[in-house]
Structures are given as C-alpha cells and as structure tokens.
C-alpha cells in the first residue's frame, strides 16, 4: 500500500517535471525560462501553508480533552517538520526566480517577508519539541505554541502589507500576481500542486511512523529504567 503511494507520487512528480521543463513555453515577461521555477515555487508555498494548517488542526485536536492522544501530537510535529523543509525551499526558489525577473535576490514584499517569519516561527516550534520532557508535557507545550504561531501569521501578514504599501507603492513585485497563464501552464500548475500534495502526504506518513518508533523506544527505555530500579530495590530490601 505504501509502496503504491510512493510509486504514484514519483510518477506524478516525473510527469510534472516533464511538463514544467519541456512542454510549457518560456515567458519573455517572467524571466524567460526562469518562469519554470513557478511550477516549483507555487506548490512548495502551498504545501508550506497546508503543512502548518495541519499542525494547527492536530494541535487543536490534542488540546480538546475528547480527542486527546499522542497520535495528534506526533502528527503535528511530523507535519511541521515537513512544512519547514518546504518553507525553506519556497524561500530559496522565490529568491532564484526573483533574481532574473526583478533583478534582486530578495524583495521585501508581504508574502516573501511573512514566509520568512513563518520559517523562523516553526523552527522555534521544532526546537521546542526537541527539548526532551514527558510526552504529555511536550504535547501541551507544543500544541499551544503551534496555535500561537498560527494565529501570529495573519497579523504578521497584515503588518508587512501595510509597511510595504506605505513605503514602495506599485513596485515590480506586483508583477508576480499578474502572471498570465495559458493552457499548458495551467495544467502544469495543477499537476504540480497535486503531485506535491501527494509527496507531502507521503513524507508526513514516513515522518509520523518514525516519530512513533522514537516514541516507542523512549517509552521502552523508561520502562526498563523503572524495572531496573525496582529490581535494585528488591535486592536491597531482601537481606533485611
């Protein structure tokens, strides 16, 4: 079943790559062939937001007493980690696309800047998860941190948007919003989004299973330590 999932994902990605690199046309107004980065940049950005949405949802489910369970905590962590990978890629790809189209590696536009803030917010979240404490304590702290981070995103976006409209009205970066999309481009974009969503699902599944293994091992080590301790105390008590 998992094998099949992986095979479908790889095929979908391969088809997307063929369309993105050979079949779609270059664009004179979007940095010629650099426009091909769009088919990576747009889906990675979408996956980043999807991943953090899943983290927020799973965290909420952990916090609700009726649905509380380690599963949600581990899912939140797995999704956030995959999300950070995709957020990093989004930033790098945006930069690589921006250089030939806008002439700069970085533009302080609202989406770019908010994405950078997002990247650091969730790096902090992942660091918080790794501080090693009991599963319940970690679940509680990271669930609350995930919800705060998620709520912070719209405020950041709003503040950066205002900042930009005050400072540089109608500069180049609006161009990106007006990419005109023809038939093969639209199809490629949809294919890219679908195949990256599949990839996201597969990666989260793998990461989730790894998290379960790690969790199981920690529990076993704790059990073993307790068993050793009990044994030791018996030995001490017995001769008396």
């Amino acid at each position: 079943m998992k094998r099949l999932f992986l095979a479908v994902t790889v095929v979908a990605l391969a088809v997307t790559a063929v369309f993105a690199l050979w079949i779609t046309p270059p664009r004179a107004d979007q940095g010629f062939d650099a426009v091909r980065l769009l088919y990576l940049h747009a889906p990675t950005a979408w996956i980043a937001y999807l991943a953090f949405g899943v983290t927020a949802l799973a965290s909420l489910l952990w916090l609700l007493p009726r649905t509380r369970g380690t599963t949600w905590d581990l899912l939140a962590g797995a999704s956030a980690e995959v999300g950070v990978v995709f957020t990093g890629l989004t930033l790098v790809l945006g930069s690589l696309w921006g250089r030939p189209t806008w002439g700069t590696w970085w533009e302080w536009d609202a989406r770019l800047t908010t994405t950078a803030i997002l990247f650091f917010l969730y790096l902090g979240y992942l660091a918080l998860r790794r501080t090693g404490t009991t599963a319940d304590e970690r679940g509680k702290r990271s669930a609350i941190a995930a919800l705060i981070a998620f709520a912070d995103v719209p405020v950041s976006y709003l503040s950066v948007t205002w900042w930009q409209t005050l400072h540089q009205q109608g500069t180049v970066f609006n161009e990106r919003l007006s990419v005109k999309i023809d038939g093969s481009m639209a199809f490629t974009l949809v294919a890219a989004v679908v195949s990256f969503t599949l990839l996201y699902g597969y990666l989260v599944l793998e990461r989730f299973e790894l998290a379960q293994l790690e969790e199981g091992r920690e529990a076993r080590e704790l059990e073993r330590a307790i068993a050793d301790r009990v044994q030791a105390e018996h030995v001490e008590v017995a001769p008396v």
Partner: protein
Amino acid sequence: MSHNWGFVAAGYSITTAALVGYFGWVRLRTRHLRRTLRDENRD
C-alpha cells in the same frame, strides 16, 4: 539573450537534493530504529 537556464537548473536541483535528502534521512533513521528495536527484542 539569456534564457536563465542556470537559475532553473539551480532551483530544480536544490529542490531535488533537499527533498531526496530529507526523505533519505527519515528512511535511514527509521531503518536504524527498527533494527535496534529488533535486536533489543532478541535479547
């Protein structure tokens, strides 16, 4: 006239490297943990 293929190549290879690298790391770690758990069970 530059067609910026360099940027495209960089973008696609960085993406591939990052995703394959991450996937590989998860796979290796999973396999390693499975093996140690199996060894521990055998004891």
